[in-house]
């Protein structure tokens, strides 16, 4: 897809992160995120994918380099989804989705519509009053996604969100995530160590190498959306997966 026609949203410029003398999590990482991108960070564990996300979200300061935002980004500009659903167990699904607004001191009443819409988008409008412990792993993850969506963020950061789920649930959530993105046109940075997942979901894959962590190759996935089950079984999917695997292999030998 033609990324250059989309406006630039943010840019990592020569970002490096050194935790201690012998732990260089990232070095000279460059990455451009355009509005509407679905970009995957793919790499072996320990290559600094999570660190990159933490730097983008502002949780961690880079040691060198900078994150250059092209737009203003206040509270609610970033949505996050972790590997665990990370819900507040003591309150209901709808109150969990309201949380980002609650932290902006906006009442539940005021934001009820947004909360309901978000839950409807992830297919959970019948579970608004449930408690997290009553839900399955996949449903909890949906709540987590609804919470990330609810503020209509500029970018959604997802750190191996489906890695802990079974394959059937993961496929279903992959499809639904793409459908969501079609509807909302949101920008997503998606961390995964699954080649198949990254190819199926994203329009661009940044393959990362470890020690020090950096982007070693960027691959475009020039397949039109919407992508469905037919894409998963198509020959072009197979070809792209093979290319990506080879890039990843190269990254790991590096």
């Amino acid at each position, binding site marked *: 897809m033609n990324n250059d026609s989309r406006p630039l949203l943010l840019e990592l410029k020569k970002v490096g992160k050194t935790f201690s003398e012998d732990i260089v999590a990232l070095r000279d990482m460059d990455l451009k995120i355009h509005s509407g991108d679905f970009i995957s960070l793919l790499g072996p564990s320990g290559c600094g994918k999570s660190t990159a996300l933490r730097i983008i*979200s502002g949780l961690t300061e880079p040691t060198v380099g900078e994150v250059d935002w092209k737009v203003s980004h206040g509270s609610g500009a970033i949505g996050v989804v972790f590997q665990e659903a990370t819900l*507040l167990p*003591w309150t209901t699904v709808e109150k969990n989705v309201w949380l980002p607004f609650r932290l902006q001191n906006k009442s539940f009443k005021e934001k009820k519509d947004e909360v309901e819409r978000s839950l409807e988008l992830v297919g959970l409008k019948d579970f608004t009053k449930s408690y997290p412990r009553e839900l399955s792993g996949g449903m909890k993850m949906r709540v987590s996604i609804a919470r990330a969506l609810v503020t209509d963020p500029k970018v959604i950061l997802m750190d191996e969100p489906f890695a802990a789920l079974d394959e059937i649930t993961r496929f279903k959530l992959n499809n639904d995530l793409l459908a969501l993105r079609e509807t909302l046109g949101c920008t997503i940075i998606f961390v995964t160590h699954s080649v198949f997942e990254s190819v199926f979901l994203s329009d661009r894959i940044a393959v990362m190498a470890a020690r020090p962590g950096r982007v070693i190759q960027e691959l475009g996935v020039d397949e039109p959306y919407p992508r469905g089950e037919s894409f998963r079984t198509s020959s072009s999917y197979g070809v792209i997966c093979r290319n990506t695997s080879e890039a990843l292999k190269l990254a790991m030998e590096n």
Partner: protein
Amino acid sequence: MASTDIKVDSPSPNKVVDKNELLKKRKERNIKIGKWVMPIIVFMITIYLWYWTVQVNNIPHYILPDPFLVVTTLIQDIQILLSALQVTIQITLMALAVAVVGGVGLAILFTQSKFFEISFFPYAVILQVTPIISIAPLIFIYVDNRTVGLLLCAWIVAFFPILSNTTLGLNSVDHNLKDLFKIYGANRWQKLLHLQIPSALPYFLGGLRIAGGLALIGAVVAEYVAGTGGIGSGLAYTILEAGYRLNIPRMFAALLLIAGTGVFIFAILSFLSHLLLHKWHESALQKEN
């Protein structure tokens, strides 16, 4: 062989009998009933043995009264006993309330300032590990007001479990949730109110259940030390006084009330805990199953 085949092929699968599952279910049911029945049976046997021992050996009631005499005494002396019980319960509850306020307040201060925590936590531990019975006499030297002295003793015993449990709870917030709050720009107050305090609730309630029993122990022990009675003395003094007069049945009756109070406090606090946690917390979940 043939009969098993028929069972497996049976059109209504509900009818298929699995011996192991059936046995397991029966055992579960027996335990459920037994949980109530067995303690009652043990209780009745104990009472009977007690009664029998007293009767057969002709033990005088100023050494060991039989259980019926204890109950009769309880009913006869109910006025004295109840007013004493009221005093003990008052001290206990007041101490527990102050322990909650003090313990939770201090725990919150601790989480707001690590420096404060590392400065003061060791002293909380020292206060806790020093037996109350050895501090109490000093307290009654320096504190003139008897009630305040009792309260102070009961508080010292009760507040530590609340402090340490609540501190632990406030500090054991899920780190991803902490990150989430940070990303959404939550301030310190929002983090405390919407994240740390709810996370700490199960820990706090665990501490509270322990503290309830300890407050009663503290109140009773302190009164033994305080000694002198008069108006406004509690059950501990009733026991002491009855002991001087060799009124053993009354000692037993007072003991019964103290034990009953302890059980009652524990039950109330357990119920409170269930009420607050049953919708979401794992501990309550497991109890239901």
